[in-house]
């Protein structure tokens, strides 16, 4: 079974014929080549595949592709400007050591963006809560939390 769906992906209107059993992560990674969204478990456990659908951070490995019909989808590829200027959250992760191996980073950054879009003044506890679904095995989270907190002081400017 295949269905034609229309949705907004990183600001662009997209029309795509998807098989009904495809997950959103499969559509993004395997069909559209957007490999920035990582798959660490395929079961909604690790958060590496986090994308934003209608302002909500979701595990794209658990989200059926046909469900994004009419919705707005944001992935890590949509954050930097077309000229390559990094989004403030990305800048902050670079500056504050919020990445090590980098596998969890796209998901971590998308979860952070969903939070800060809704609540730009999120406090430490709110940030920890928002990132509770994203597993990082390298950093011990300290520099990740510092990266997200530091965004508040950056004035929301791309580099």
């Amino acid at each position, binding site marked *: 079974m295949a269905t034609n769906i229309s949705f907004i992906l990183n600001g662009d209107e997209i029309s795509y014929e998807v098989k009904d059993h495809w997950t959103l992560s499969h559509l993004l990674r395997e069909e559209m080549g957007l490999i920035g969204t990582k*798959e*660490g478990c395929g079961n909604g456990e690790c958060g590496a595949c986090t994308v934003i659908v209608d302002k909500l951070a979701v595990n794209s490995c658990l989200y059926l592709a046909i469900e994004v019909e009419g919705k707005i989808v944001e992935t890590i*590829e949509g954050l930097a400007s077309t000229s390559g200027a990094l989004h403030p959250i*990305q800048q902050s992760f*670079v500056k504050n*050591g919020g990445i090590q*191996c*980098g596998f969890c980073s796209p998901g971590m950054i998308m979860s952070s963006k969903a939070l800060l879009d809704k609540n730009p003044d999120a406090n430490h506890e709110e940030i920890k809560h928002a*990132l509770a679904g994203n597993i990082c*095995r390298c950093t011990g989270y300290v520099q990740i939390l510092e990266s997200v907190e530091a965004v508040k002081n950056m004035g929301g400017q791309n580099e």
Partner: protein
Amino acid sequence: MSDYAIIGKRMPRVDSRAKVMGKAKFTADLKLPGMLVGKIKRSPYAHARILNIDTSKAEALPGVKSVVTGKDTEGVKWGVFAYTRDQEFIQTQKVRYIGDEVAGVAAVDEETALKALDLIEVTYEELPAVFDSMEAMASETELIHGDFPNNINVHVNIDTGNVDENFKKAHYIREDTFVAPEESYFQAEPYAIVARFDHEDCLEIWCPNGGPHMKSKPLSNAFKIPLHKVKVRKIAIGGAFGGRSEICPVDYICALLAKKTKKPVRIQFTREENTIATRQGHAMITTHKTGVDKDGRVLARETTCYMDGGAYSSTGPIATSVPFLSMEQAYRMGSVRYNGYRIYTNKPIRGMIRTHGRGFAAGLDTQLDMIAEHIGIDPVEIRLRNSRQPGEYTSTKSYVDSCAMDETIHKAVEKSRFKEKWGKLPPLHGIGIGTNSVQTGFPMGIRGGSQSFIKFNEDGEATVMSGVVDNGQGNDNMLVQIAAEELGLLPEDIHLVSADTETTSSDPGSYSQVSTFVGGHAVKIAAQNCRAKLFKVASKVLKVSPDKLVAQNRLIFVRDDPEKSIPIKKVVRISLLNFNSVNAEGGYWPKVDMKREWVKNPYGQMCEAFSFGTTIVEVKVDPNTGQVEVLEATAAQDVGYALNPLVLEGQFEGSIAMGGQGGMLTEYHEWNGGRCINPTMLDYKLPLACDMPPKINNIIVESVDPKGPYGAKEAGMSIAMSAAQAYSAAVSNAIGVYMDSFPLTPDKILAAIKSKES
């Protein structure tokens, strides 16, 4: 030491921009034209004889391009050492754990490959299985490997002599046993492989690896092709923690499928496969018997450890030794006898892990705390009386040059206010200390050194070639920092070509904290050699001798007259016009004792430098739930010299997370008849952001090692280990019971509190 331009600075990593943009490519992100999907048929039995494998139905399925079994492997076996080659790449006779490889399939898509797996019919004769190292040694049923009596895979015996005599002289002797079950790596990236044979019949392969050159040699052996025909490529790697150190049988199977189909093949492990079929940490039962004098100085120690090694040897001899070595480096032992046994069981294969020997080390430290209490001194004092000092030899005869163990203890104690808190905390609050040491590498024979090549391009930028691999810890940045510092360039002027076996020289790999000390050192020497060529040309232009020149910020200038300068780019061009290219090589081989061998001769110089670390943790235990709340963690490590404090602090904090928070409170595997019942991240409890201590104090101690590059040794591993010890000590202190079974899960803590009350 502070006049470095780039070394020692808090520099954001060169690889971070690609990673935050999602542009860094990991193995599963690769898509090659015509690529097939590979899947592995695994054993459902823990121990069984293979009677027959029928692949005909699978092969007949439309879309299936190849099915391989043990018949296709020509009987090649894997083992890290010649004397441990006990694992066929695909089993032909027996399966030895639930998950053992019995066949591989390549098909046009994942659905077809999975259907084909179901169509492969394997007939087994089930055999009695053993899942516990003590039972395995006593078992009278069929041995897991016929040529290893009592299922003992490895026995390491170390004896300094005088142990029994010194016990007789001891003022106080204790013997205690400590246990810890298996733990796993849970790298963020599940294992994946892409392999193809190119137009010249070269095998090209991408996979997470702890050292590309350690993958290429076994693959060249297995396929009986020259080493230059195996091209292990560089790829982003999502964490290793010791779990990517060796070749994985599926590397071979993927390459075999690519060979048979003449197409690229990609195999992606599921999360469960990553847990079951890569490596795990060993379960260990460790008995420490320690005798001290009246001041608490250790006179004699006897340690016996039984390690559950799982179905195959893996890094067995190394794994059986390292928990002991870490302790003999950290502490003076007077005299010591060590017997380490690695036992085969019908469980997944065990290898080295970042927190290797958590129960071994936490047990030794717990016993020190018990002894301290008995003789009436505090945990800090007993450590200071037994801590390793510079200029000493370890029990196995390694000379310890730089060593600031005591400084890490003093600084961590001061920062955590240990002395003020010890014995004065409210009920169910506790504080604990752990100290540890790790090595920077070990004797690896002809593969123990690293060599780097550097070439200047005509635009004044440089290409640096090194075999060092980056598993995520920041090795690429480390190499770039060193090259930029020595060449007088900016980090963005350095183009790094690394971890590719076609273009880079052999390197020991990212094992045993060796990358900076050996690989980084090689880049430093190559860059210095290259700079000498630049200075030779520049000295003629500037009319001063080369030893008066400095290279910095893309310029070469006179040290005492900085206005007198010339751009490096111009120097390169002048050199080219004078018929000389600007390039150089440099290598570093640590002066270790090549006669040292894990089993046959475990004595002699192990490596050139050791790091030393102290962690102190303060906790609060909830007596109703058994939950531990960590209030503060303090980590102090003698890193030699901090090349990049930003990266180093990340290593410290990650070490607290994996070694302490996860390693001592929540992480362990559970089993049912040899089947791991918590292979996923939902069931195996990894620390989350909300679990971490609210405060981690990082203390960098610099002993400036005389042999390390800029004095650097290694970053973070001594913390991962000492964190485990500190967490266990703090919980024991909080509840007033010395814990001997790790990790310290709520059920064990509640039982301990209850037993104390009754």
